[in-house]
């Protein structure tokens, strides 16, 4: 620190400094930037901080305690007079839904997108159009139409287990997953890879699993992460179809013990942020490996 200051001093010219117009502008700019960011971040963080304080301070008695957090991490809400079974049911359903949705999504999207990417531009555009369609059809609209379908499914084919929500969830995550995988496909030259490995005598399954998947794994991972985030946050479809998941459980628990549901929400939001930071790091690596080529 001192050394830097000294060496800086020694390279500074003596005499008066000419006007530092650019530096003055940079200073003005950073004041404006700071004000904007401070106000925005304050607006975004005040509710989050309030959530944290809310979980620590009992709303009626005003006593400070870690009880809601203890309840969540020990799984026992008796000290607060809350029954946590609903929460664990919802969490379990949501975690299972994450897994099943991701698997189903990958099975449906990856092979189709790879083959179409190699073979047919027209079909690729058609798939892009269909896959991004759920962005323009609100979930609340979709659920109106899904109602009869799910009624029929649960009465004649399957049952009312929340796991079957995965069929609807695959549609909800499709636009996000499509984009993540498309980025990966466009960053590698799939066609040449396939031709090269086919010319070396590899069979199609081998090409797919040994060549394409390893080159796409970062995109597949980011598609999976974003799908998990969507499924964990989903409320509309589950609640209107009368199925249990994490968000429905949080809502129900919130009616009886808002402290625990707020604490759990905070955890879920935090988990979402962690997932998305990981996603950000992965996509940065994809971008870097693309630059390398």
């Amino acid at each position, binding site marked *: 620190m001192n050394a830097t200051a000294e060496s800086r001093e020694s390279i500074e010219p003596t005499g008066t400094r000419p006007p530092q117009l650019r530096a003055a502008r940079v200073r003005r700019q950073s004041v404006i930037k700071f004000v*904007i960011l401070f*106000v*925005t971040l304050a607006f975004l963080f005040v*509710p989050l901080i309030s959530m944290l304080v809310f979980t620590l301070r009992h709303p009626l008695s005003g006593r400070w305690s870690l009880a809601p957090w203890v309840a969540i991490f020990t799984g026992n809400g008796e000290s607060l007079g809350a029954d946590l079974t609903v929460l664990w049911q919802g969490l379990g359903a949501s975690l299972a839904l994450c897994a099943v949705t991701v698997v189903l999504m990958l099975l449906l999207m990856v092979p189709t997108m790879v083959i179409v990417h190699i073979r047919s531009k027209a079909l690729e555009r058609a798939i892009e159009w269909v896959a991004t369609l759920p962005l323009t059809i609100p979930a609340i*609209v979709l659920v109106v*139409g899904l109602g009869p379908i799910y009624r029929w499914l649960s009465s004649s084919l399957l049952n009312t287990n929340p796991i079957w929500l995965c069929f609807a969830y695959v549609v909800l995550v499709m636009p996000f997953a499509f984009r993540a995988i498309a980025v990966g496909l466009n960053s590698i030259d799939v066609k040449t890879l396939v031709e090269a490995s086919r010319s070396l005598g590899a069979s*199609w399954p081998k090409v797919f699993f040994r060549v394409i998947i390893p080159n796409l794994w970062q995109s597949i991972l980011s598609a999976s992460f974003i799908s998990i985030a969507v499924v964990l946050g989903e409320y509309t479809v589950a609640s209107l179809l009368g199925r249990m998941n994490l968000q429905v459980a*949080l809502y129900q628990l919130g009616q009886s013990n808002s402290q625990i549901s707020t604490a759990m929400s905070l955890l879920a*939001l935090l988990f979402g942020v962690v997932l998305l930071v990981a996603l*950000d790091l992965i996509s940065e690596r994809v971008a870097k490996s693309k630059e390398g080529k």
Partner: protein
Amino acid sequence: MTASIAQNGPVATKGAGPSATSASSAIARHRKELGTFAVTIPFFAYTACFLLAPTVIVVVGAFQTRDGGFTLANFAKLFEANTVSAFVTSIVVSIASSVIGAVVGGLASYALVIGAKPNGLLRRMVSAISSVLAQFGGVMLAFAFIATIGINGIGTMLIKTVTGLTVNPNWLSSLSGLVTVYCYFQIPLMIIIFLPAVDSIRPQWREACESLGGNTVQYWTRVALPILAPRFISAFLLLFASAFSAYATAAALFSQRSILVPLMIQGAMRNEMDPNQQGFAQVLAFAMIVVVAIVMLLSHAVEKRAGRWQ
């Protein structure tokens, strides 16, 4: 499933050897195209069941009588006073929160990009938090606002102890309360949509503008804002669609009051057995599709116009 897909390739290409006659190679090409199409069947079949079918059910249901005949009568309910007022509230809240969200989020994107490292820690954290709040918050955002400004909220208590004023417990369900809550996911949504647009602003443009004699005002009005305008408008439209179709946050905040269109749909779905409510949910959903489709077409038109130079 994967195995059957994988086998389509070699089967289809076998006929296309150099010795094949033109007729058989045409057949081979045809078979190859069919093969490619066959691969996409699971995808299209799936989306037909869970995306197309629900949409068709909504549209058909909107025009259907109880016993399956065609009718326009269901639409009459759209013009009842409480339905109209739900649409007005939904649209007003969506526009107001989109305007605030677009302006504040746009400014925040600018502040995050200009003069900062492209992969700085602050930017990374803000975009991750924004993604979560904008896209996956739902019910949890409602808890955030109850914890802040609800009856027992921390903000409510602070305001009471500091100023002695009592916050109206119904403020959250007032128009301004709703707009505030919606801004909580609109601003982050704008940040994640608009960051790439601000990234595309090159520092050379400002330097070129200055060296040609332009001042700061001229830079903004003649260069930066016109370049950003198309993407700003299409981001605004996307924000509108997002607010208009948002359900979870509002549903968690006031479950019993149908003051917004999505909440009204919820009510209609719950009362589907009521003969008075025949096709009502479908009509509302159909109207929502129309509104969102118009917004998307507008956004598409704006992007196409900008496409002339982009």
